[in-house]
């Protein structure tokens, strides 16, 4: 792997807890570390409840961190930070949400929805500049500027998700966290939104973190993928490497369950079940190990030795 690439986001030993009624807090994210390079699309996949969205929310400071550090362009952004930095990362890191029906204020016009971030960070000099920014953002996502005066319900699902993208894009972010941006869309519209995200990345040098459970989409658009299970990243590698040589049993199980639109392949397929009790971590604790350059897996010494053999 190219070591000279600039690290945009560096997450180290991140821990997020939720306090419930019981004394013991629930650990949603446990000791998670990864780096995202500038200009890449980083995939984070896992099942529901695995903590993938929580990681995204911790990065944008919605969820408090209980431990570990998050660095954005070399500066720590979790915990207590100066107000100026808070403003800056609010602008530089944006999110795109899953359901464009639920994530857009149905009582607000598109103009307001897209401008809300600008209002909050006062990132414009006067009204005409704000209008110009909104217009540019709408054009960039393939909508017409006159749509600004309409309400979300006047748009189709694909157009609505474009508004969601415009809302993030207007802030001129460097890093976008896309949380399942296409899973609630119709098949025919998914391609449009994926193409749009790819175009914006190419034209504006954006970096994406793509949170998804659909591995087929992840394979198509990401450069590197991390697989998360029960709040821990179990494997991380370049996308093609991960799909060609999955090492961790959980990754294998997940990959085996993905339906492919090919009846011959599907008939041959064997779904592998994942049983967490197959790991014996009582004596040897699992460690985050680099098996081949850029391919990391969570396992104890015996397991890693086994993985290395299967990889070779």
């Amino acid at each position, binding site marked *: 792997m190219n070591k000279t690439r600039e690290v945009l986001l560096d997450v180290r030993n991140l821990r997020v807890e939720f306090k419930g009624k019981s004394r013991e807090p629930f650990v949603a994210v446990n000791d998670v570390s990864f780096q995202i390079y500038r200009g890449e699309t980083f995939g984070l996949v896992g099942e529901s409840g695995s903590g993938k969205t929580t990681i995204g929310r911790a990065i944008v400071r919605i969820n408090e961190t209980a431990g570990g550090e998050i660095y954005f362009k070399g500066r720590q952004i979790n915990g207590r930070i100066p107000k100026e930095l808070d403003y800056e990362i609010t602008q530089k890191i944006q999110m795109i949400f899953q359901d464009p029906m639920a994530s857009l204020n149905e009582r607000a016009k598109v103009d307001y929805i897209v401008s809300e971030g600008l209002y909050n960070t006062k990132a414009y000099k006067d009204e005409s500049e704000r209008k110009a920014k909104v217009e540019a953002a709408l054009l960039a996502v393939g909508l017409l500027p006159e749509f600004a005066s309409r309400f979300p319900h006047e748009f189709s699902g694909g157009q609505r998700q474009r508004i969601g993208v415009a809302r993030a894009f207007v802030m001129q972010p460097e890093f976008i966290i896309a949380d399942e941006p296409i899973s609630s869309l119709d098949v025919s519209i998914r*391609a449009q939104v994926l193409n749009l995200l790819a175009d914006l990345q190419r034209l504006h040098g954006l970096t994406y973190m793509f949170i998804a459970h659909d591995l087929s989409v992840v394979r198509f658009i990401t450069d590197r993928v991390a697989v998360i299970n029960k709040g821990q990243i179990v494997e991380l590698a370049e996308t093609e490497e991960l799909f060609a040589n999955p090492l961790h049993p959980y990754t294998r199980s997940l990959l085996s369950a993905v339906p492919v639109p090919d009846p011959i392949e599907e008939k041959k397929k064997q779904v592998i079940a994942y049983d967490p009790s197959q790991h014996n971590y009582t004596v040897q604790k699992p460690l985050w190990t680099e098996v081949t350059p850029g391919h990391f897996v969570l396992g104890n010494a015996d397991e890693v030795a086994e993985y290395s053999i299967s990889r070779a």
Partner: protein
Amino acid sequence: MVQPILAAKDVTIKFSLRGRILTAIRGASLNLYAGQTLAIVGESGSGKSVFTKSFVGMLDSNGWVESGEIMFEGQDLAKFKHDKEWSAIRGCKIAMVFQDPMTALNPLRTIGLQIQEAVELHSDARGSVAKARTLELLRDVGIDDALHRYHQFPHEFSGGMRQRVVIAIAMACSPRILICDEPTTALDVTIQAQILGLIRTLQERYNLTVIYITHDLGVVANVATAVAVMYAGDIIEYGTSSEIFYNAQHPYTWALLSSLPQLGIKGQPLYSIKGTPPNLFAEIVGDAFAPRNPLALKIDFVERPPYFQVSPTHYARTWLLDPRAPKIDPPATIKHLREKFVGVRA
């Protein structure tokens, strides 16, 4: 010739919405054969749910079957008017599994009672007999410790387990046809694989005929023996699973397959279907897909294509199959898939 278990012919379904008439299904025909697993695919609003709901009389109150017939066991379901007539069919001979297992179950009643309710409604079994049958159903759908689970509420079940309960309710009086409307869309992939496996096991054990409504072509490839592609209230292509995946004929099916990320080439834009589906309030002239079809012929805008037979099991509504039509090359993705088809037949 094998007789179909259910035969829908030229079914037209209309809805009345604020004084305007919407034509949701425009003369769709479908034969369903015993033991078959049919997948109905199409984008939202194409009418796949409405069409199958008409088989169980579950159209919303502002909708009705305008014309056509739905023959099932010698009766024309399209003529049914009252719930009384339906009660012998719905949930009994033809059962349905819905998308979201959370909304399909009553959160205030134990799952045991909810399954037992279906058992008692459709059979003479009461009390301990009905309970025994309920426990048997729970075991059938792979829920361990049935006696304990019987007394639990839906919130004590995970998403996959809840969907098993919904399937148990559907199976309560041994239906002949099971309609699964997006049964796994709300579930994780690993759970999805389990549920699809469960439905397959039940299908084999009870000789069920299954209709899947889904937009996930991966699921279709996994489960379906036959596939019907719907667009704007009509079945525009029908064939066996390999015929649809490897030898699709209708430009809409081509577009649907080409837009899949799984078949795309990384780094290149995906094919995306331009425009929006047609307005179903207006009358549709010609091929409904023509305005969005870059390959459309002139006649596509004038006259609705009939079904052209490709093989005994494969037909499509597209003028491209007319002998007089110009030879049009399908997109690259489709050509690539066709090479596989040659392999399948060889």
